[in-house]
C-alpha cells in the first residue's frame, strides 16, 4: 500500500464523481461512471483488497455500465436542463452542513461530557479497532479450518457460507423482480404487458 498513490487515486475518484453529475449529456455521465468504476478497482488493489478489486472491475465497472447504457438506449437520450430543481439551494446548504459535522467528528480527538471521543484511526494503522478484535482469528486459523490460502474466500464460502448462499437468493429475487417489472416474455416484444395496457387505456 502506497499512501501517496492512494491519495492521488482517491482525489481522481472524487473529481470523476463530480464530473459525472455535472456534465450535461447523460451518455457522457454514464461513460464517466464506467471510468469511475475502473479507478475504483485500482484504489482497491492499492489498498490490498484484490478480491474486491476483481469484483469491482467486472461487476461494478463492467456490467453496471452495460446495464445503464442499455437502459439509456431504450429510453432515448433526452436530457433535461440541469439546475432547475427546486431543492438545489436548500439541498446544497443542508449537505454542506452535514459534511462539516462529519469532518469535525472524524478529524481529531475531542472530549464530550467528560468522555473522550477518539478520532478515526489513520489509514493503515495496525492497531485500529477493526484490526484488533476478531479479525486476527480469521487470519491465523483460516488455512487450518478451510484449507484455503485465500482468507477472503475462506470467510466468504466457509465461515459465512449461509450468508453467501442466501445472497444468491437476493440476486435471484432481483432478477425475478426485473423480469416481472419489464414484462419480458409476454410475446409483445418491447411493449408493456397486458395488465399495464389495460391500465393505460382505462386512464
Amino acid at each position: 500500500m502506497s499512501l501517496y498513490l492512494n491519495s492521488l487515486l482517491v482525489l481522481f475518484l472524487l473529481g470523476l464523481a463530480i464530473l459525472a453529475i455535472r456534465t450535461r449529456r447523460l451518455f457522457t455521465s454514464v461513460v464517466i461512471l464506467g471510468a469511475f468504476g475502473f479507478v475504483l478497482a485500482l484504489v482497491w488493489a492499492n489498498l490490498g483488497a484484490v478480491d474486491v478489486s476483481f469484483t469491482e472491475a467486472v461487476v461494478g465497472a463492467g456490467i453496471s455500465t452495460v446495464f445503464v447504457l442499455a437502459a439509456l438506449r431504450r429510453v432515448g437520450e433526452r436530457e433535461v436542463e440541469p439546475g432547475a430543481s427546486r431543492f438545489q439551494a436548500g439541498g446544497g446548504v443542508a449537505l454542506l452542513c452535514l459534511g462539516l459535522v462529519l469532518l469535525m467528528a472524524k478529524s481529531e480527538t475531542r472530549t464530550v461530557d467528560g468522555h473522550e471521543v477518539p478520532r478515526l484511526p489513520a489509514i493503515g494503522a495496525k492497531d485500529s479497532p477493526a484490526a484488533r478484535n476478531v479479525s486476527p482469528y480469521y487470519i491465523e486459523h483460516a488455512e487450518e479450518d478451510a484449507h484455503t490460502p485465500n482468507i477472503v474466500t475462506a470467510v466468504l464460502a466457509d465461515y459465512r457460507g449461509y450468508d453467501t448462499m442466501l445472497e444468491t437468493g437476493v440476486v435471484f429475487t432481483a432478477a425475478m423482480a426485473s423480469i416481472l417489472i419489464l414484462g419480458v416474455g409476454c410475446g409483445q416484444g418491447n411493449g408493456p404487458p397486458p395488465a399495464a395496457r389495460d391500465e393505460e387505456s382505462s386512464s
Partner: protein
Amino acid sequence: MTLELLNYYVFTALMLVGLYAMMTRRHLIRKVVGMMIFQTGAILFFISTAAKVDADIPIVRHAPVVIAEAAETHDDHDDDTHGADDTHGGDDGHDPSGHGDADHPRAKADDYVNPLPHVLMLTAIVVGVATLGVALGIILRIQEHFGTLDEDEILEKLR
C-alpha cells in the same frame, strides 16, 4: 498528518456528492448515478479501515523453504491421512491435526490486511448491482407509462 485521513474526507465527499445528485437532479437516471456514487462512498470507508501499512494481500503465503520441507516430510504421511479420512467419511474435525504446527507456522495477523471488510464489501457490490438492475427496470416502465423521465413532469402528470 492529513494524508492518513484523506480517505475519510473523500468518502464523506463522495457520499455528499451522491446525495446531492439524488436530491437535485431531475432526470431519474441521473438519480441512479448518484445512488451508485453514494454506495461507493460507503464501500470506500470499509476498505480503508481494512488497510494496514506494510501488509500483504489476504492470501496466506509460506516461505518456499517451508513448502519444500513440508512436501518431503508429509509425502507418505499425507496419503495416510487422506485414506483414513475417506474411510471415516465426513468427520473432518481432526483433519487440521494433519498439518503439523512446526511445518506450517501460523500466519501473523499483522502481516496481512484485514479480510473481513473485504468479504462484507463483496456482498455489498453484488447487492448494489442487483439494486441497480431493479431500479433501471422500474425506470423503463416509468418511461413507457409517462413518456418522460423528468421528475417534475412525472409529478405534474401524477396530479
